[in-house]
């Protein structure tokens, strides 16, 4: 990773309007508060990661950005538009794509049909080019285009979930635990693809991860979440070297 370039990039972005900005967001499940006022920014062209323990509210933040569940307080702005109260499907049409937790591919549809679903937002425009592109990124999917999604292995399903999200040519890609339950080799592969998407296509990526070491190594900036609050933020490198982060998320091997 070109650490110098990324810091420079961040410095430029600091003066600009962020692509995605979360301000004082509180989300509840019934009466239980899950997010206790979260502030977060994602600038254009960045990879931002959110790390934290189980139940810290990482996925809730991810889902709240997509309006499901909705934030009870605070505002979420994307590309200058307030999307806090927008229905999920309309948010999806603003060139934000999400690969939700647990992959959520369509198991009885073929890989090809799954990819078509991803492209349906922009009316299948540039479908062939995009198909070619994701097939180059994930050659495994190309081999299995006619296979049902549910018959893929876990890693392939994760690839399909990311590929499906890419089919809409998103400006901002939200990834929820892409490494969940995958073998180290495939995790490495998926992270290198995320990096490639960011560097080659300039795609902005917001990554929620348990795998703190890999995520922080990859990301330009990172946030640490503890029980519904952002407790720390900084460049990926800084967080990786922070003794507190090391003690909580990185010690005991990675």
């Amino acid at each position, binding site marked *: 990773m070109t650490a110098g370039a990324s810091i420079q990039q961040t410095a430029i972005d600091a003066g600009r309007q962020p692509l995605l900005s979360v301000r004082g967001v509180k989300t509840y499940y019934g009466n239980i508060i899950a997010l206790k006022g979260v502030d977060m920014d994602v600038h254009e062209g960045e990879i931002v990661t959110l790390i934290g323990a189980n139940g810290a509210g990482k996925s809730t933040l991810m889902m709240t950005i997509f309006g499901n569940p909705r934030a009870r307080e605070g505002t979420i702005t994307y590309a200058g538009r307030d999307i806090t109260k927008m229905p999920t499907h309309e948010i999806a049409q603003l060139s934000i794509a999400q690969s*939700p937790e647990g992959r959520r591919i369509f198991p009885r549809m073929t890989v090809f049909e799954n990819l078509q679903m991803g492209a349906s937002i922009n009316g299948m425009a540039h479908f062939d080019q995009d198909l070619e592109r994701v097939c180059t990124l994930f050659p495994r999917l190309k*081999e299995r285009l006619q296979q049902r999604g549910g018959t893929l292995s876990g890693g392939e399903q994760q690839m399909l979930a990311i590929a499906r999200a890419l089919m809409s040519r998103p400006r901002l890609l939200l990834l929820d635990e892409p490494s969940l339950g995958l073998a180290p080799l495939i995790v490495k592969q998926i992270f290198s693809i995320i990096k490639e998407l960011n560097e080659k296509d300039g795609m902005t990526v917001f990554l929620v991860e348990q795998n703190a070491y890999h995520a922080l190594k990859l990301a330009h900036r990172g946030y640490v979440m503890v029980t519904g609050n952002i407790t720390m933020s900084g460049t990926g490198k800084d967080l990786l070297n922070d003794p507190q982060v090391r003690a909580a998320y990185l010690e005991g091997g990675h």
Partner: protein
Amino acid sequence: MNAPSITSSAQTQAATKTFDLKAALGDAFRTALITFGLSIPILSFKTEQNGADLFLRSRWDLALIITALVFGLRLVLHAFTASRSYRQATPSPKQATEPVHAEPSAFQHVSKFAIPFFLGVALAFPVLIYFVQGGLNESRYWIDLGILILTYVMLGWGLNIVVGLAGLLDLGYVAFYAVGAYSYALLSTTFGLSFWICLPLAGILAAFWGMILGFPVLRLRGDYLAIVTLAFGEIIRLVLINWTDLTNGAAGISSIPRASFFGIPFTAGEGGFAQTFGLEFNGMHRIIFLYYLILVLALITNFVTMRLRKLPVGRAWEALREDEIACRSLGINTTNTKLTAFAIGAMFGGFAGSFFAVRQGFVSPESFNFLESAIILAIVVMGGMGSQIGVAIAAIVLVGGPEVLRNLTFLKAIFGEGFDPNEYRLLIFGMGMVAMMVWRPRGLISERDPSVVLKERKAISGSLVKEGHG
């Protein structure tokens, strides 16, 4: 056994991949010819004794039927063997260890072939029955049964949109059937509108009620949705019973006008159907017309559903069934998707309902109880959710089956003269359903047919495959 499709071995993989229809037809034809030849001495003539006289009675019709049957079975056998050897020769898509070639599945081979067969039988059914039973009046029972089965096929296909494709468990489908039936009954008796005007109106009204049901249940899924739809079905029935001013309550509406042959009534006298076409008047003309009417309606339902499945809205239904959250995050408006599924499913229920009213000439709330919903749902579930051909087969089995079991007179030979097969038919039927749920728990045809099949297999270059290990 010289048809190439039957020889199955690892070496002849290439041959087994495609079902050779021409060879199979040829083989079936040869087999049929042999059967016919054999049947001349065995089947075609029967000696009958009348007093002291012994004479020959020809039974060419029986011989022909047997020959046709053998022809059909032989073709089915070919399709079956071809699909099995295809399965054995190709790695199953379910084991994700080897790349799978982008070619039609075995199921598609069978269905490509079974659909024209079923369609042919359905189209020729009245003619076949006419020859088997030897007369119009004698075939009444069978044609009526055919109409009944096709009504349920249509209802099954309609409900398949809601349950099979969109995955919304609807236990109150009969409500839309009732709305359709009462729409026709009331519009025709009150305003004297003809069937052909009422049919689309009934569909629109039922679709409207589908949306009305759709709104309150938008947030529900699974069991909860089932309970609310069940209640909805009961509400419609109770309203029909209690709103006596409009619906005449439990007594129902009688003397509903009959359908005409595009304006020509089925009457005996001047200007009637028989006279216009120079036929001798027979009440069966109307029944046969009704048979073809419901056949056309059912085929329209099927055709529309098949087309919709290939369109974005149909794909959205299926995606909704698979995963609602994924649907939303892909930008699909789940509200609209659910409402269209309810409305279109209900519309076909409404068409079937108005057909029911015109056939019976009488409607009462009794015809629209929960049992009807349960039967229609059983047809969809047993057929395999989302499978059109599976639903048709299930309708034939579930509706036609009990009627066939009614005629199990051979059981008298086993259990003695006092045995009444009629009393046991539901028991046998129930056992059959249990057996089916044990062996095919996901329905007769549980495999989803992809709505897009890539024709050419995209070549995978070696450099790309290398990267994809892992």
